[in-house]
């Protein structure tokens, strides 16, 4: 066990994957000499050379499209999209090619791409640098989508994503990059929790609180705060956004009967709707109160000086918990 930041854990994950498999290579903007704008790939150019750590021209569709061609040739490309908001120029290649090629070719062509996305807000960044586009990819069949919330998962799940024969869109919360945690560098990948499973990160009785990415920490903080008031929250870190680990969520809701789902992304047709609907479909009778969403608003991400009013925080989550528990809350008395 070593303590390291998530950025370093991701770098270590890349290094391990590249050492294990010569077909793994990296493509992206500024990932070579600079080591990436978040320094995740720092040192990798030196160790693996320019043939495997590829600074590309400034063109995201080009990066993903070239990675598709490399996958045709048997490589396992790991693409870095510099910031969440710059994934959209590559959207066509991701949705029409990466996601569909295996299906289109009846399994002849595999697309073991990993698309790393520094992701989300809370870092005081400029416009287009705080996007949460995960729902677009969850809605796209043929992709797997994961989101990490701590250095240990970052290290393991990145290697799992790279080892996956399917394309994985890999979301890395930017505001956790410098947060530290324990990482087991030597544990065999085979022993790790499968990438597709959620984790109950805190057991509780009264309300199930589902989160992912940076919101997991906020949810845990909320759980601690709720504890002081005698409310016991069970916090689930989804980890895999597609497929969703229904079993873990359902089991929790069947016990608590109440559900709050948290994410940074805007609410409308976001992932919380999927989690809630799945629960409503499968555990309707277990639900004791209306499920609650605590999410970003349905706005373009606002200027950073106001982002705290966009992002769910501890207080907003606790307000949602109150709602789920039928206790007085900010919406008490509002027309539905």
């Amino acid at each position, binding site marked *: 066990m070593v303590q390291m930041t998530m950025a370093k854990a991701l770098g270590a994950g890349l290094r391990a994957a590249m050492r294990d498999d010569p077909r793994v290579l990296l493509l992206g903007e500024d990932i070579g000499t600079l080591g990436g704008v978040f320094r995740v790939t720092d040192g990798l150019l030196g160790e693996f050379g320019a043939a495997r750590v590829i600074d590309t021209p400034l063109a995201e569709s080009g990066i993903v499209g070239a990675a598709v061609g490399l*996958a045709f040739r048997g490589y396992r490309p790991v693409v870095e999209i510099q910031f969440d908001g710059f994934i959209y120029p590559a959207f066509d290649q991701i949705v029409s090619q990466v996601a569909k090629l295996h299906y289109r070719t009846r399994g002849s062509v595999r697309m073991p791409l990993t698309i790393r996305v520094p992701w989300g807000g809370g870092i005081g960044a400029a416009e287009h640098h705080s996007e949460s586009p995960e729902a677009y990819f969850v809605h796209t069949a043929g992709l797997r989508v994961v989101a990490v919330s701590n250095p240990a998962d970052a290290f393991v799940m990145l290697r799992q994503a790279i080892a996956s024969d399917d394309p994985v869109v890999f979301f890395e919360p930017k505001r956790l990059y410098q947060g530290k945690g324990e990482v087991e560098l030597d544990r065999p990948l085979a022993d790790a929790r499968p990438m597709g499973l959620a984790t109950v990160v805190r057991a509780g009785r009264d309300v199930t609180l589902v989160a992912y990415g940076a919101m997991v920490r906020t949810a845990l903080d909320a759980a601690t705060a709720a504890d002081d008031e005698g409310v016991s929250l069970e916090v689930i870190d989804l980890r895999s956004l597609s497929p969703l680990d229904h079993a873990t969520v359902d089991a929790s809701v069947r016990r608590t009967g109440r559900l709050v789902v948290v994410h940074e992304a805007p609410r409308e047709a976001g992932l919380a709707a999927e989690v809630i609907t799945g629960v409503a479909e499968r555990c309707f009778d277990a639900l004791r109160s209306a499920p609650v969403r605590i999410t970003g608003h349905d706005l373009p991400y606002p200027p950073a000086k106001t982002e705290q009013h966009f992002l769910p925080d501890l207080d907003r989550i606790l307000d949602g918990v109150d709602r789920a528990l039928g206790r007085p809350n900010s919406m008490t008395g509002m027309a539905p």
Partner: protein
Amino acid sequence: MLSPQQTTADPALAGALRMLAPDGTRHPCPELDRWVADVTPEQLRLMHRDMVATRRIDREGVALQRQGELGLWAPAEGQEGVQIGTAHALRRDDFAFVSYREHGVAYARGARIVDFISIWRAEEHSSYNPFDIGVSNPQIIIGAQTLHAVGYAMGIQRDALRAAPGARADQASVAYFGDGASSQGDVHEAMVFAASFAAPVVFVCSNNQWAISEPVALQSRTPIVQRAAGYGIPARRVDGNDPLVCLAAMREALHRARTGGGPGFIEAVTYRIGPHTTSDDPTRYRPAEEVDAWRRRDPITRLEAHLRSMGELSDAQASDVAAFGDRVAAEMRAACLSMGTKAPLAIFDDVYAQPHSGVEREREEYRAYLSGFEDGEVL
């Protein structure tokens, strides 16, 4: 008299290199002659046969569609010269990324006749395993495949380096695309990447004058070949209805790619004789005379005349080829008429390479749903 390089008074062909005139006469082409100096009559006859087969496949495709047996067909008629000419320059271990119209490329690379059916009958999104014939599945998203070709070429380079440090790639990939596609951002980015990494890829732009109803002048005010220089990519503009010059230009570009010279670009000036697809009605946007003028530049007639002028195609040989074409067409029809539709639950196959709880769940739900039907649909 036209100079050898100058193909015709038609501005569409301005500056295009040519070896075979429409009447089959061989003109010298100093720029490219050396690339076909070794071509034997036997090789030309093989090209001719593939062109005839391609056309028969194409016509049968149209016929089958008209008869309701295929959902759609994208006719390649008139473009056999560039397709077979360039494909014959490829080696087994090269890899071509094609659009929906490159039937000739797939055929020349060994696609089975049945492979032309399932996709157009909408039974499958594609049929062959691309690694069997070194041809990608036909791409419908305009231009997207050009980036795949570049990435593949980057893989070729990296394979060589892995085999031996400093080693050079000895294979190439090809990106086939149309004049309309030249406007897409992806095609630009493909050229940027290819140039930046000196990737062993050849861009073949089949400029057939039209993108559905849009004339090439809407995409480009200048010959598309001029784009290549902007990236520092060596380029040739050739008469795409002359299979020999297409072979030559492709050999030149492939040789360069295979010897570390980086990408190449070929604009093959040709014409789409048929409709865009069987859903299209070209009489709405182009005059019959234009089509007629291009029919007179037919690539098959041209190669045939050339072979005959050399005494290399006897009547007997010609009728053998025709008979071969008939067999291909018959095989295609038979394959089409005997093709069934896959079982309903097969739509859940191959979404992912590895087990996926979501798809598995949906498959089970749909299985249960179907099993409720009395008529017992086969699962």
